[in-house]
């Protein structure tokens, strides 16, 4: 299995708290369900613009969703 990427996130927790599915979140931010799953599992780091869109969907700021852990 590939090493997780250095950017951690709490997308799964925030998504579940809002009662959204991966597909619904994906539709709102312009990603596929598979890409949302990859972000949640730290297999893919989204672009800055997408990261902002995800944070905006959760009505929070970027730092509350994503964190850099080298």
């Amino acid at each position, binding site marked *: 299995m*590939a090493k997780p990427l250095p950017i951690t996130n709490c997308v799964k927790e925030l998504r579940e708290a809002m009662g959204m599915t991966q597909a619904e979140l*994906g539709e709102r931010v312009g990603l*596929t369900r*598979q890409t949302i799953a*990859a972000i949640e599992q730290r297999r*893919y780091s*989204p*672009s800055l613009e997408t990261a902002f869109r995800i944070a905006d969907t959760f009505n929070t700021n970027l730092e509350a969703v994503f964190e850099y852990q080298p």
Partner: protein
Amino acid sequence: MANHEKTAWIMMVVLLIASGKLLQTIIQHSETLGTLVPPNAGILIQYVIALVVLSIIGHIALAITSKQALEKKDERERQFEVYGSHISGLVLGLGCVTALGHYLVHFDGSLLFYSVFAALIASQITEYLVVIWRHRRG
């Protein structure tokens, strides 16, 4: 399975079927002639038509069976495609250089044509394989 991955599978299978049939035709004609058959526009046009028809059938089948079929590629899938194109370009370059090197030794124009054509097919199959692998790997 993502729609983008399904498309790569369909296109790879279509390309393998059409190319396999082309190879079979070339071998049959070459056996009849007793030497490598020179490149023939008729055979290649049949190949292109088969490729286009099978691709259309595959995509129609995908559109019927998958509600995601009309979705655009997202940023992650575009990255996979760029990486696939990069590796595919390397395979094509290597194949062409090998074919040209072979021509310098043997001066066989027909074989040069087929070698470059094979490199083109191999590079496209490589691109589909890389896209599928990247989807599987995450």
